[in-house]
């Protein structure tokens, strides 16, 4: 029945194409015929559906009246049982920013950074697919789509059945270092990344490699983890990853517990070591002209993180509070060169001052609190502060930075359901020396379709 109705509809659509050949009268008659047929089919469908609906209502009434005795697996109602859980995140924003390019003063730009567009823009559209591969393995992929690109943010497998608190993950995954690193942008509590993660990793650190985690058999949560990976992403580099062996490795330890029934916390300490080769970064030289530098050496980062969550009686539905803070120190040592930019009026001159030792000891932190004061509504405040620290460019004609980039962000968001969120954020951005932007406004939406996601603590 469906097929015929479809055919009729398709013919109705196709009709204008053959209109040249037919006369108007023929056409009208044909149209009338098709319409009558269509109407009749619709009526048939309606009666059929009504009959089925009535039958189902009857069965439902019977089912509610009868006591529950039969045993049946709870899963048989789901179709696509073996297909991966699928979810899609839609996100977009309106941003009010000062014109011109913005960067964080005194830090070599870390990796790729999303966003920053002014006006209306679409953020990455994230597609997640996940399923158990077999009884021993689970697979997960997260792909971020943007115009002309599909970026594999994560694609990994994880063991389920090693036991003894052990789990091994392999593929591309968000590193377990720090706290916010494992969160995708849609899970952030603010519209943009913290300054700390921006300078450290661009967005976050993804490792191509292997991760091993061990959970201690104690009543207190104690988790130890180690990762080795390609190290192709900032603070590593493509060339750094191109070697036999690992271009980066990291270690982390997490500890956590509850305070009574209302509070819980987690603290962590992480270390990341990377060996970048020819890592390219743009800096401004002493003539204020852009110079392309290449860095090869060692990059070592320490991160400390702490999260505390509170909800009355541990029930976050109506009210809850989350405090989160992270601190980092990064030491980089090695050789740096800059490409000749004298043509543009720059100071980097080939063979004169274009390479020397580079060393940097830099740090930074952020702290944020987010309070849900009634169902659906939350407010949050974040402070970001970086210290350019001690940086030495040797004879390279690049000025030594001396700044404390910082930023205040205030946000309010509204979640009509647990699958949707709208956010307004105001920010005082003092991350670019001599070019403050005190009136940043961001309006943002984030919606999730499909499988019910479970976010980590």
């Amino acid at each position: 029945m469906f097929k015929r109705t479809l055919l009729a509809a398709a013919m109705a659509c196709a009709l204008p194409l053959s209109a040249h050949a037919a006369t108007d009268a023929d056409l009208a008659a044909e149209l009338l015929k098709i319409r009558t047929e269509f109407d009749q089919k619709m009526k048939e469908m309606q009666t059929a559906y009504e009959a089925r609906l009535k039958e189902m209502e009857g069965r439902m009434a019977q089912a509610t009246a009868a006591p529950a005795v039969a045993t049946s697996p709870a899963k048989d109602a789901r179709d696509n049982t073996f297909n991966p859980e699928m979810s899609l995140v839609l996100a977009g924003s309106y941003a009010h920013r000062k014109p011109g390019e913005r960067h964080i003063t005194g830090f070599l730009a870390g990796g790729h950074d999303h966003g920053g567009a002014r006006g209306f823009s679409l953020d990455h559209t994230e597609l997640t697919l996940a399923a158990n591969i077999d009884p021993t393995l689970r697979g997960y992929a997260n792909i971020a789509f943007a115009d002309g690109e599909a970026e594999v943010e994560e694609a990994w497998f994880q063991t389920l059945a090693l036991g003894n608190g052990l789990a091994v993950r392999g593929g591309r995954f968000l590193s377990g270092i720090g706290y916010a690193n494992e969160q995708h942008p849609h899970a952030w509590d603010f519209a943009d990344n913290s300054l700390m993660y921006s300078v450290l990793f661009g967005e976050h650190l993804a490792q191509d490699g292997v991760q091993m985690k061990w959970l201690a058999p104690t009543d207190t949560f104690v988790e130890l983890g180690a990762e080795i990976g390609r190290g192709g992403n900032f603070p590593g580099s493509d060339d750094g990853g191109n070697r036999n062996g690992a271009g980066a490795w990291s270690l982390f330890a997490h500890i956590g517990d509850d305070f009574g029934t209302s509070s819980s916390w987690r603290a962590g300490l992480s270390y990341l070591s990377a060996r970048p080769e020819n890592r390219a970064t743009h800096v401004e030289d002493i003539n204020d002209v852009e110079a392309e530098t290449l860095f090869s050496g060692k990059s070592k980062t320490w991160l400390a993180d702490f999260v505390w969550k509170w909800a009355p009686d541990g029930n976050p539905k109506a009210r809850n509070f989350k405090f989160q803070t992270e601190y980092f120190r990064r030491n980089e040592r090695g050789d740096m060169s800059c490409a000749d930019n004298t043509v543009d009026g720059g100071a980097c001159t080939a063979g004169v001052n274009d390479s020397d030792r580079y060393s940097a000891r830099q740090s930074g932190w952020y702290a944020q609190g987010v309070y849900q004061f009634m169902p659906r509504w939350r407010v949050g405040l974040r402070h970001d502060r970086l210290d350019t620290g001690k940086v030495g460019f040797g004879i390279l004609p690049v000025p030594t930075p001396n700044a404390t980039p910082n930023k205040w962000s205030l946000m309010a968001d509204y979640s009509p359901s647990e699958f949707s969120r709208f956010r307004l954020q105001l920010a005082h951005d003092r991350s670019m020396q001599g070019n403050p932007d005190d009136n940043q406004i961001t309006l943002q939406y984030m919606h999730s379709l499909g499988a019910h996601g479970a976010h980590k603590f």
Partner: protein
Amino acid sequence: MLFRIVFFSLLLAANTAHAALNVLACEPEWAALTQELAGDLARVTSATTAKQDPHHIEARPSLIARARNADLLVCTGAELEVGWLPLLQRESGNARIQPGRAGFFEASAQVRLLEKSGHADRAQGDVHPGGNPHIHADPRNLLTVGAALARRLAELDPANAAIYAARNQDFQRRMSAAIARWESDAVGLRGVPVVVHHRSWSYLADWLGLKVVADLEPKPGIEPSVSSLASLLDGLKARPARLILRAGYQSSKPADWLAARAGIVAVELPYTVGGSAAAKDLFSLFDDTLARLKGALK
């Protein structure tokens, strides 16, 4: 020093594992049921309390640590714990409690679920296409789940199989007698029209014959708003109700708002073990629930 601490905690963990089955229940009702069936043979804790909505907690570190050491997870299933349980299982590094293993018991798989729609559209709210997961509110389900759980305990701890079977028999006898008593006690509740806060009460209503005429939530899992309550109040004029039922973990505001304006009674029910001072175990849970319902109708 550190080595010594690790060594002794390992030893301790190994010891407790031998002394009894280490059971982590997702909700207090299953902790109570396991305790009925296993007595001293199990060390039982619950991941949630009666003050918490089992659909809305997080896989926090302390729970992951408890899942790591569990021999058996006893949960509702039917997507009730979908926001945290899968994460808990995966993060635990514990092979025993993974889906499909004997150490993972889903109560909802043992009974027939109400409100099974088979299709899912979130325009209908946070629906569970597999059916309504709040099964324990009908004590007849506890008999079925109890029998299956006793078998599972025996499978995990065959040395004590006879004890689990005997305890189950005793539980079945006491619970059946109690159900008969409750049912005759609650004859007056049959056909009473009620408003519910969330579909937590479908099984209770089904068992006692209460007539659910409205839900405070405009859609399942969507919190009531002033406008949704106002239209509900309008609807009550045509289809009047006598009681508003809500669980202790739900905010009292929407129920009180509607009760005051519609001139009906809002009742806080224990929902699960520990939900009220009187609801100390599965038996007193229903004693207290019925007492509150009947008290509210006077």
